């Protein structure tokens, strides 16, 4: 309780002082950090402008299909794996980028933040960024090519990538910091962090879990992609995480369990009440390799890439 009051008291003080520290953009060109500018204080009332608003033909299922196809195209072209992991988060990303995230522009200081803590699913994220027009076809097509920005793991030099990730167990701490920053500034930004279930093997995840609960970071939403698999085996055979939702709730988080491929359920849950007293975790039950029958639940599609026949079959299954 004390923490929540502390956060509120600073946010009032910051506004009275005519500053919104969060609006201060770090400036790489000079030798000093630019002081906050009072003009940056104005927070534009933000609705949920989204792909689907701009183009009603792009429904969330259509967006999800678009992302899946881009995963198959990109993976085949680059001969790079992580297909199963990308397909398992596709519907979560479609919900986020099609409807949930309030991001008028990727460099808007007041945007919601999204962190793909399971960075190895970056190809799915690139497809979502392409759907928002934040990256172009050339960037998406450059996946894993020389002299391009779209590598296997996301890099913040790419528009729309808030934080570089790739080493599991780091994204939630970045997100907790971003959520704390929003609270300190009295801003209504929300922060979404997408983790893998095996990522919860990392002790650092639980450091962040404890901090977020202690400081009642209700504007922080962790999404755990529970596909039950990790690089070498099924999660229950490596370090059994079940019951995952009870573990998070025992640490003080408000827990939501959803079907990670049900777009309506996802959007409804991901826009859950930010005014609650606790951070939120959405335990998303997913299928590894979702949408491609021969990949679903198969360990080998963590790293394998497709041969021509597999590629054709996968395309047919996703595009039907």
């Amino acid at each position, binding site marked *: 309780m004390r923490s929540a009051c502390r956060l509120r008291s600073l946010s009032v003080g910051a506004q009275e002082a005519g500053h919104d520290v969060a609006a*201060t953009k770090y400036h790489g060109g000079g030798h000093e950090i630019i002081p906050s500018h009072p003009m940056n204080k104005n927070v534009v009332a933000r609705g949920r402008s989204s792909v689907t608003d701009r183009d009603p033909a792009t429904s969330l299922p259509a967006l999800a299909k678009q992302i899946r196809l881009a995963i198959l195209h990109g993976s085949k072209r680059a001969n790079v794996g992580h297909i199963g992991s990308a397909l398992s988060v596709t519907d979560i990303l479609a919900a986020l980028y099609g409807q949930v995230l309030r991001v008028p522009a990727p460099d808007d200081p007041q945007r919601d933040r999204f962190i793909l803590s399971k960075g190895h699913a970056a190809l799915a994220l690139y497809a979502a960024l392409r759907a928002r027009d934040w990256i172009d076809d050339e960037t998406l097509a450059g996946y894993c090519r020389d002299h391009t920005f779209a590598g296997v793991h996301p890099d913040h030099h790419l528009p729309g990538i808030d934080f570089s990730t790739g080493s599991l167990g780091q994204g939630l701490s970045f997100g907790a910091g971003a959520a704390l920053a929003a609270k300190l500034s009295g801003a209504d930004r929300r922060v979404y962090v997408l983790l893998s279930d095996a990522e919860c093997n990392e002790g650092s995840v639980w450091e962040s879990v404890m901090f977020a609960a202690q400081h009642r970071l209700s504007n922080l939403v962790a999404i755990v992609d529970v596909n039950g698999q990790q690089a070498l085996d099924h999660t229950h055979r490596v370090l059994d995480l079940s019951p995952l939702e009870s573990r998070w709730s025992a640490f003080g988080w408000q827990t939501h369990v959803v079907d990670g491929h049900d777009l309506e359920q996802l959007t409804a849950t991901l826009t859950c009440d930010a005014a609650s007293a606790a951070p939120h975790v959405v335990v998303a039950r997913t299928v590894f390799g979702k949408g491609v029958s021969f990949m679903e639940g198969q360990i080998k599609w963590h790293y394998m890439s497709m041969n021509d026949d597999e590629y054709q079959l996968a395309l047919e299954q996703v595009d039907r």
Partner: protein
Amino acid sequence: MRRAFIRTLVDLAEDDERILLLTGDLGYTVVEPFAERFPARFFNVGVAEQNMLGLATGLAESGFIPFVYSMTTFIVLRAYEFIRNGPVAHGLPVRIVGVGGGFEYASAGFTHFGVDDVGVMRVQPGLTIVAPADHEQAASALRATWRQEGPIYYRLGKDDVSTVPGLNGRFDPQRPQTLADGHELLILAMGAIARQAEEAVKQLAAAGHSVGLIVVDTVSPPPLERLRHALASVPVAMTVEAHYLVGGLGSLVSEVVAERGLPCRVVRCGVATMPVGRTGSEAYMAAQHGLSTEGLVASALRALNGPAEAGHYDS
């Protein structure tokens, strides 16, 4: 140094509300002035250094200037990959404050020795490393650097009483501090051990030797031209640091000498063996590794009078 640093930080925070202080549950009787003056901007994040660096990364991306505080070993080594992938990779203004360079927590044992922090931090591009030599310089170094872009590592000591004679708190990020000129030998010192180096220079001068002394307070980015200039005019340079011989000031000076092709021999004084096992006071530990004033004088005399000795890698 740590109290002077926090007192200065309180002053700076009065005028800039972007400054936050996070601690990994350390700093008893040190961080209180900040915590009491700015309770809403102070966070004890618990014994969780990795998360602390991650939090600071998220805070800095949103425009804050977070200072994260712990002991050198915990904040640098435990959180190292978070430092690398967080503030370093993103070029964010996180200020990493590590207390206890060298053997300052001597009786606490090996887990508390800051003898490898500079080595691992120095390899990170864009990470400024500031190692003040005394508490007056810690305060002026903070004032001179806190607003600069990119991440900074401040390597602090515990001593808030002693000063390095002649330093008078001077700090210039572009210029190491020259405390004595000499043409026979140049001693370069990093951190609080500069006090022993200064005393050694005095004793050597009394014995009739012309020995120079430079305090290298900004280790990264190194003041290359100043170092080159100083090293070009002496036959022997002796580095002094409470740090492993590899990776710290001795390595830096050797790199400058080798890359610039200078006709200068480098003798490195530092921690040559793993300091496990027998323990004792800071003075005891320093002496065991040749870093007492007497040890430094002896090393300097060998460097001045004798032929080149076997190097670190010869043993």
